[in-house]
């Protein structure tokens, strides 16, 4: 073997070793340009002072964080409450739905899956607006509840926290259903037969075998619902009332109406940090490392 071919072989080996990194480049580039860079902008914005007319200057003004937290901690808490309720409601609706699609739907399986994602063909805004008429004061549901005396004669559904949670639940339901379906569908039905053979009745078999095996789907679904729901502002905008705003509404107003970029940026950074902390606690508790 000559020195030339040895050199070539070495270069080939190096190239092969580098291939995975080369394949990563487009994705990394995209993330750097559209995630890391904006994040840095956001972080630097949050530490600036000034106004839209005179311009902003980076003054490392940490006090903005203290200020926005003391002003808006209520909205933070409310956002997580609403998102939490919507996540629980979506799980309660999506689990049976995904279970039926995965195990009991036979030849209708694909049709049902299409129906689950069908709402995506309509714009997010239009779907939320539709809930305005569903829950309207003179709508069938409000009328019906008043007739049944569940709702007082002057009571309303629209512009209440209830309406906001309904909207959040509805809008993020497919994000809950699809991961649940994926993990339920993967379960070998012979395991359920085996549980029955080993003295587990249907309820016990579900509790001991089906549900634990679907946990990865539960974790994925709840995260995909909770995270966007916590930052949402559209549902409050259309279905809620101004006194019960979520943190998303505050950020939106600060950015677009008051053009108070430092405060809006600080709120965004805080929201993100809070969500990251919650997600870490949650996944630790759920023990996903072992399940997935």
């Amino acid at each position, binding site marked *: 073997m000559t020195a030339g071919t040895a050199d070539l072989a070495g270069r080939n080996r190096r190239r092969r070793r580098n291939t995975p990194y080369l394949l990563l480049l487009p994705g990394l580039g995209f993330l750097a340009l559209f995630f890391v860079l904006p994040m840095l902008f956001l972080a630097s914005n949050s530490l600036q002072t000034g106004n839209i007319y005179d311009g902003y200057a980076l003054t490392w003004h940490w006090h903005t964080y203290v200020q926005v937290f003391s002003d808006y901690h209520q909205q933070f808490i409310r956002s997580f409450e609403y998102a939490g309720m919507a996540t629980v409601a979506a799980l309660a609706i999506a689990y049976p739905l995904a279970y039926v699609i995965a195990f009991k739907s036979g030849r209708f399986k694909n049709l049902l899956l299409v129906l689950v994602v069908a709402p995506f063909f309509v714009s997010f805004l239009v779907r939320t607006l539709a809930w305005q008429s569903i829950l309207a004061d003179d709508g069938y549901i409000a009328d019906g509840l008043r007739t049944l005396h569940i709702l007082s004669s002057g009571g309303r559904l629209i512009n209440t926290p209830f309406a906001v949670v309904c909207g959040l639940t509805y809008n993020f339901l497919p994000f809950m259903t699809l991961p649940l379906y994926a993990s339920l569908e993967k379960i070998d039905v012979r395991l359920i*037969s*085996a*549980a*029955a*053979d*080993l003295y587990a009745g249907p309820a016990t078999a579900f509790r001991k075998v089906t549900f634990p095996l679907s946990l990865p789907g539960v974790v994925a679904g709840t995260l995909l619902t909770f995270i966007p729901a916590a930052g949402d502002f559209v549902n409050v905008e259309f279905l809620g009332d101004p006194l019960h705003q979520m943190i998303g509404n505050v950020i939106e107003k600060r950015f677009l109406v008051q053009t108070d970029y430092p405060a809006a940026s600080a709120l965004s950074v805080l929201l993100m940090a809070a969500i990251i902390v919650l997600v870490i606690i949650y996944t630790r508790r759920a023990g996903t490392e072992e399940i997935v």
Partner: protein
Amino acid sequence: MPESIDLAAGSDPASHDLRIVDLTKRFGPATAVDDISLTVPAGSFFALLGPSGCGKTTTLRMVAGLEDPTAGAIYLGDEDVTYRKPYKRPVNTVFQNYALFPHLDVFDNVAFGLRRRGIRGVDKQVTEMLELVELAGYGGRKPAQLSGGQQQRVALARALINRPQVLLLDEPLGALDLKLRRQMQLELKRIQTEVGITFVHVTHDQEEAMTMADTIAVMNGGKVEQLGAPEDLYENPCTVFVANFLGQSNLLTASVTGQSGDDLLLDVAGNRLTMPAQRRGTGSDRLYVGIRPEKIRLRHGDDAVEAGGAERNEVSGVITDSSFTGVSTQYLVRTAWGQELMVYAPNLEHDGRLRPGASVVLSWNPAHTFGLEATGDLNAGLQEDVLEVASAAAGS
């Protein structure tokens, strides 16, 4: 919710026989199990043997309660369990793919059945059971961390620990390689003898069934073709299917020409053969006579008749193929009437002249001949690969 199930073995073992009465299962227009009746004596090792699609697994699933019969009944002792839910039957299954719970470790898998029945303090029992299947110390592992053979043992332990009245095994060794399979066959037999529980074993491997079972039911097309001890089935098959499926057989079309004492005189394409009259197997004068390949002795056509040869059945032919398998050499011999007969000759002394093309004489003890009713396909029950070898050899 613990189920209380009486698993205490009664004093009278006959009270725990598994009885299947007129059992039928239809899936739409297809009949998977066609009116079968069986009794599996308590404590025996019973095999349901047959090709895929013969209804053996469906029968097993009905006994387990995982499938409802279309008609018929299943009794455990005197109890009718036909429509009882699987989780209320004192029956456990070792599934074909093991079906171990992937989210539970070996210990929890094995303890599953006991805990569902509300039994506390299962540590000792689980440890003992893991020792029985030679997996002591593996309790903390997940099924995915075990080899196929180890998973198979866990599946066995998980079922056995419940001390079922009947243990069902659905092709439990199908996924193992040949050597491990042989080892596990002996292992299963040892464990069955040790625990004394009734084993019902479903398999398509006739050698596996013969190695392990006390009694074999050979199934075909949803029916039981023949039931008996392995030796009995092998020596005295009642149907062409059994003769071909359980081991191999050379089947010749014969007609009865007379009887001399206890011997039946036969004519096979001009050759005079005899067989014991009691093994005739049919009232008809036209019948199939069968002879197992290892019972035939092969000698070169030039050699003199051996001592006592006058009483042996003899047929002459030409070797068309031979293959050396180590223990024996398998020959295909074409007879004068064009049929290929199979001969397994033990490799004692090697006769170099016995090569393809050589003229040979086949001889066998008439007492080893069995008779079958001459109905149906001569090839019924032959495995595909055997047919292929035969036709390839015939073509060459």
